[in-house]
């Protein structure tokens, strides 16, 4: 177990380093930050001086090495645009994204599993077919379109929910939360649906097909034959056995939710790290882009690690069958 974890951590670090290298090799193509930092009256000499000062005249490998050295000391640099430490800016923005992701994930999981089980048990009912049909929309429509559509219906036409932003937030010592105010909660609804819809339909379809598979198994038939109640059969026996793939996918999707939040955050002007990243690209704010990409890859790698560990916890076969080449 320990060897496994150590090996995974070592692999993760390699992945992170490669991601960073690729990211830095791309930054030159994003554009030149200098023009955004100097005004109309800049001269060629100003441009050269600033370029040198920022180290942009160095090859990207050198820039990357400098970044790593500083990052190892917990220093992610100063944002070109805001003139403030990147770590500080990310900390400010993280709560917004994490709260949104948490609500979306919760929405996607509960509704996804619930509807998945429902459509599996009543596979031929009208409701099930309707849900399956509607769920196609969730899979096929792009996120920003869903967002704009929701804004149009619920903010512009019905005027029930705010069209942008986080509403009023409460500062709990460095963590701003929208959970404690009415406007904050209202502001969460549309972005959370937009962000979670795809994941919800994905989980729903996955649970449904796994359920259908499991329900055909012999032990379910025997459970029925033993006269167990339908609910016990469906939820205790069938659902539990569908969960392994569901956890894998959900775990990976949690990472996707945070990463995909970029689009949702842009549509709803949600002040999270995704919006920050989009801004950073626009202004070629390399320190912010670098820190964000590293943060996201740390997160993805971390989630993968946790998912692997959860396998151990849920599926006893993995523990027993270790080394037997299953």
């Amino acid at each position, binding site marked *: 177990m320990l060897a496994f974890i150590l090996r995974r951590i070592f692999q993760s670090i390699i992945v992170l380093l490669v991601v960073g290298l690729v990211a830095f090799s791309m930054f030159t*193509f*994003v*554009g*030149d*930050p*200098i*023009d*955004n*930092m*100097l*005004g*109309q*009256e*800049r*001269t*060629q000499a100003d*441009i050269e001086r600033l370029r040198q*000062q920022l180290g942009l005249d160095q090859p990207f490998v050198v820039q990357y090495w400098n970044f790593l050295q500083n990052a190892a000391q917990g220093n992610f640099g*100063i944002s070109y*645009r*805001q*003139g*403030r430490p990147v770590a500080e*800016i990310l900390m*400010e*923005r993280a709560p917004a994204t994490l709260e949104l992701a948490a609500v979306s994930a919760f929405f996607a999981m509960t509704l996804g599993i619930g509807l998945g089980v429902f459509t599996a048990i009543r596979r031929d009912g009208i409701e099930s077919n309707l849900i399956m049909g509607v769920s196609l929309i969730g899979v096929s429509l792009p996120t920003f379109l869903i967002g*704009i559509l929701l*804004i*149009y219906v619920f*903010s*512009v036409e019905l*005027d029930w929910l*705010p*069209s*942008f*932003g986080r509403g009023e937030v409460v500062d709990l010592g460095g963590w701003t939360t929208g959970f404690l105010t009415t406007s904050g909660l209202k502001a969460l609804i549309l972005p959370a649906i937009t962000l979670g819809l795809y994941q919800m339909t994905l989980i729903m379809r996955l649970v449904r097909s796994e359920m259908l598979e499991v329900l055909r198994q012999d032990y379910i038939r025997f459970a029925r034959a033993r006269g167990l109640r339908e609910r016990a059969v469906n939820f205790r026996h069938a659902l539990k056995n569908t969960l392994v793939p569901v956890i894998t996918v959900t775990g990976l999707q949690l990472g996707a939710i945070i990463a995909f939040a970029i689009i949702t955050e*842009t*549509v*709803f*002007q949600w*002040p999270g790290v995704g*919006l*920050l990243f*989009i*801004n950073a690209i*626009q*202004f*070629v704010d390399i320190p912010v882009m670098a820190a964000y990409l590293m943060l996201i890859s740390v997160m993805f790698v971390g989630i993968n690690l946790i998912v692997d560990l959860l396998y151990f916890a849920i599926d006893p076969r993995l523990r027993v069958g270790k080394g037997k080449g299953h």
Partner: protein
Amino acid sequence: MRPLKITLALLALSLSAQAEEFRWAGQTDPQTMDPHAVSSAPVLGFLNNVYEGLVRRDAEMKIEPALATSWEPIGDGEGWRFVLREGVTFHDGAAFDADDVIFSYERASSEQSDVASWFAPVSRVEKVDAYTVDIFTTAPNPIFPDSIANWMMVDSGWAAANDTTRPDKDQGNYATLNANGTGAFRVTDRQPGLQTVLEPFDGWWGEAEHNITKATFTPIQNPATAVAALISGDVDFINPVPIQDAERLDGRDGVKVIKGIEARVIMLGFGHDHETLNFGADEGAPNPFADVRVRRAVAHAINVPAILQTIMRGNAEPASQLVSPAMRGYSDAHAERPEYDVERARALLDEAGYGDGFSFGLKCTNDRYLNDESVCQAIVSMLAQVGIEAVLESMPVRNYWPELREDAFDAFLLGWSPGTFDAEHPIRFLVATPEGNLGTWNFGGYSNARIDELLPAIQSEIDDAERQAMLDEAAAIIQDEMAYVPLYVQPLVWGARETIELVQRPDDFFILRWVRVN
């Protein structure tokens, strides 16, 4: 009867004095609260509500007294004497006087400042008494008061106490997040990129025309979201409105669209000093744009009225020179722009030996100016009609300037908004032969000895008529030589709730003290 009247009057009074919260959205957040750290329109425009200069611009862009009550030239054009307003206080209560002007000069002209170039003509600044300041210039400078409308005054004591005596755009300092001006509004909450809250300053020296008690600014990047926020009433004002949404938005109840023209002229530039073409099928062939007849042919081949009618939906105005008619020094004598005339264009090309046309590379932005990419596509098809093939490459502005600096173009699209609102500005930046501080945006390397001679003379001419004569001459040369093909003046489209009264200034600055919420 009388008590009723009084009650009504009181009622009306209490109603008008009601808390009027105003919320507005723009596309970019002002990246700093430091008035000397970044010379960009979003920053200077926003801070004009918080800080003030010696002079300011009125609704028509004319200079009017602000922290100086009057000014006059010193002697024979050695400089300018400013008489300061007495009884002005900063938001923190400190008094404003000549020492703050001297300090603000030192701060704004320092090496760390982004606005230092405004003070390039200044030799020294002297305090005469507590409320009089002399600013000496190296040469007579008639437009100096015009050029410092955005030079904002910072309190010397406040700056010293908070260790921000110099701006710091790289690392940031206290003034990056905090502001202490003399303006009609003070910053009460600043969250970069999220929101900025302004409240009226009780101690402001001026008479408040607005009725706002609190103003909240939120950047909204996505134009569709901003429009939705305006319609649903989540914000009272947005800038800009996407030009394609303007008509639809105007038709909706409760909102209105405010249109005008900006100071920005959109033009086509050429690689004058290129030996050969860099792009297209004729890559490596001698540069046809070195021939003025070819440049004129291009000007005649572009159907500007059609571009304005279709792509700009009738919101923009054609441009005849590098500045719009609203700018000081605009040449009325050269208000004619080259007509759309395909035959003439063909004839000119024939004459220049390009009767069979040629192929070249056109560089264009796709996120800098209103509908820039569509405009370039239209130009491509218009040029095709006279046999010229333009190979279009459009890119985000963050990639654009580096390309232009490296001469990676044959012709390019450029927009120019003169920071001084004077016709001298584009001559200095776009037309003068590139060297040092001159011609820094003259990517094509256009060079004309007479222009280079006229520029310093224009800069130091005190007499308005003489100055205009020289500006007219420069305009004539630029037009005649077709150094650039001026296309149109970019439109300005704002959106507001029906209940909002405001003033739209051509520099796209949103001035809060002119806003009334009804």
